[in-house]
């Protein structure tokens, strides 16, 4: 029955909206209420003990307006903002798109796709530092493994990737995608698996196959998950400094620096931690709307079922 409902909904291109049902009709009463509150306490404790104070402390660290004058005077700042836009914009969206497509690929049932999935997960489990350092070395233009392989296989000398702004930035983005794509692919893969098979069957009865089926069944059902994952990863990517720090190191001539690495350098190389916090806080105008959209998504989901 629910299948027909959902199929109908898909046909209309809209998810069904009905009021949430409660096991506890008419609100929680008596001991149930106490239980509910008790269940909420552990996270409330974490929140009050480890979130409120650090966030307020963090905001306070970056609250002196003089920091921002100093920051905007730094010629590296504008470069870092532009790079961050590219890094996050391309890194996140390209990755989520690829992860989405790959999640479809990994739905295949052949034995080798299943084995390949295990290899594909490897980057996720590898510790970040050694992995990124390995990427830095393998991209070395003179002696790195990548160009060695190009020379041995095709007899050509590859470019010096990390000496150029664009290839350097691409290397950082590539490393970030390499490291984090498996995680999101798995999430989206599971999302696809959750699409009831009956829906596809119902759709093919209606004559929808291939692209049509993808557009009318898969896409609408995955859209919400996809958007939420993208928003979350945008937030994570804004704060990520490891790939840039260890792959290009911000080079050449500080041209691939992003806000997170600039902040980390201020904090831990120049011993100006407040300036470091101020640097990432300039991303707040972007972050706060993202957080609000996520909040809305969370609440909307609560009403829908």
């Amino acid at each position: 029955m629910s299948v027909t409902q959902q199929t109908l909904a898909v046909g209309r291109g809209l998810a069904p909206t009905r009021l949430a049902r409660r096991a506890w009709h008419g609100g929680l009463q008596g001991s149930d209420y106490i239980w509910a509150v008790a269940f909420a306490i552990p996270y409330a404790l974490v929140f009050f003990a480890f979130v409120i104070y650090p966030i307020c402390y963090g905001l306070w660290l970056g609250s002196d307006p003089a920091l921002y004058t100093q920051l905007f005077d730094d010629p590296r700042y504008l470069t870092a903002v532009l790079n961050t836009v590219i890094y996050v914009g391309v890194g996140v969206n390209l990755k989520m798109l690829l992860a989405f497509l790959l999640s479809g690929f990994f739905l295949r049932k052949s034995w080798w796709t299943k084995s390949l999935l295990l290899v594909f997960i490897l980057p996720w489990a590898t510790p970040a530092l050694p992995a990124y350092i390995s990427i830095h070395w393998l991209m070395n233009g003179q002696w790195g493994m990548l160009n060695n392989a190009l020379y041995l296989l095709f007899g050509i000398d590859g470019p010096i990737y990390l000496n150029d702004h664009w290839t350097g930035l691409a290397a950082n983005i590539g490393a970030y995608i390499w490291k984090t794509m498996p995680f999101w692919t798995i999430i989206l893969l599971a999302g696809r698996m959750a699409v009831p098979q009956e829906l596809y069957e119902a759709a093919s009865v209606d004559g929808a196959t291939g692209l049509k089926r993808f557009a009318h069944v898969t896409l609408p059902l995955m859209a919400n998950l996809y958007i939420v994952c993208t928003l979350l990863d945008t937030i994570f990517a804004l704060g990520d400094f490891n790939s840039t720090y260890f792959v290009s190191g911000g080079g050449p001539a500080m041209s691939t620096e992003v806000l997170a690495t600039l902040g980390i350098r201020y904090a831990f190389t120049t011993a100006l931690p407040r300036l470091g916090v101020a640097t990432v806080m300039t991303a707040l105008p972007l972050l706060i709307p993202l957080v609000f959209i996520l909040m809305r998504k969370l609440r909307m989901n609560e009403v829908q079922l």
Partner: protein
Amino acid sequence: MVGMSRRSVLAGSVGVAAAGALARPYIANAQAKTAVCWLNQGFIPQEDAAMRQVAEDYMKASGNKLDYSIMPFMAMNQKTISALTSGDVPDLVFMDAPSSILPQNAWDDKLVDVSDVVTPYESQLSETAKLCSTFYNKVTKKRSYYLCPIKQGATPFHIWGDLVEKAGLKMSEIPKEWDGIWTYLKQAQAPLRSKGMRKVYACGLQITTVGPNDGNNLFVHFMIANGGEGIVTSDGKLHVDDPKVREAAIKSVEFMTNLYKEGVVPPEALSWNDADDNNGYHEKLFVMDFDGTLSTELAMIKDKQAFYHDMQTVAPQLKNDGTPMKTQVNAGGGYIPKGAKGVEVAKDFMKYFMQPNVMNENLKGGLGRWAPAIPQIVKDDPFWLSTEMPCLKPYITEAVLNPTLPVFEGFTPAWGQANAEQLWGQAHADVIKSGMKPADAVDKAFKRCAEIFAKVVM
């Protein structure tokens, strides 16, 4: 009551220490006290063992307790900055290379003045070590000691002698003038390549912005060789308007970018990180490297042929005008954050540590990677100038016996900020990648440098 006893202990130890170079300037304390110490890990296990030894010996001698932990530099750096910012500090931090943390924190009045520890040793310490240990405090508006110096290190040339010979050149014919060294050695590349070393280069010139220190260190040594060491003076003033300084900078940028353009420097050098030059040098992918301390040699101590025969350590000797060249020296040691609870024990420990015999034993444990901050030590103990380890004598000669300059970081926090922006590496990139004229690239870097200095008013 507690305050009284603290003060009296302090006064007592100062008094005794000031009385001269006594064997035991510290006060054995009836009421044992504790100090929390963070010590940075060495490059070789012997350094850590020597560090533990000093701590244990001190505890035995004084009855005080040192609650010490040895940790990797990267972790310790981040911890120390977090501690200084948040105010939850240890009593003593001991670092090999504290020049990224000290200038700014002394400036912000976050460190304890340790003049009473250092002053008794003033007559024995090298001038450079003393200059590396004084910093300006913007609250008290004066310079004072904020570091108890124990060790100092310099930057020598590391040269593969066997590659030089293979190329038909002679180590003994390497000129003494700075530019001459590079010009002579760059001739090695063509013969080596014709002998089948397809990817070998002559010079490991780290004109990088990734470093983070290599590129800046290299530039400063070129400046010194070209007579431009006056770019910053010990009063923290910048002298980029001095024509002599500007000329030296232009010469330096021109020389380095020319080496690069001639193809005797690995092209990747523009984006090398801290370890890339070391890796390349160890794998004989270029003939020479100019890099801090003896770590390059000591990392290969197990390879007897390389360590005892092939690798040669050469100290810079003459500037380009033929006069003796000072090289830049950095000092390491202990410092005490403000707000520390065990200040007197921490100071007492550093007083103990700074005694020449204690200092000597500790640094010998590190196989001479760091030289003592008290020059007399290397004259008294035959270890330091023995030729048993071929790399040691030239290095100690450079770091201790020859005239030296302190790193400029100690003069003003502004220099550290300018370095963090990698102004000099950017100037090289401007010339190499954007085709800017060296003079224009230097003027651009100087302009930005002046802006940074203008904000740090002493």
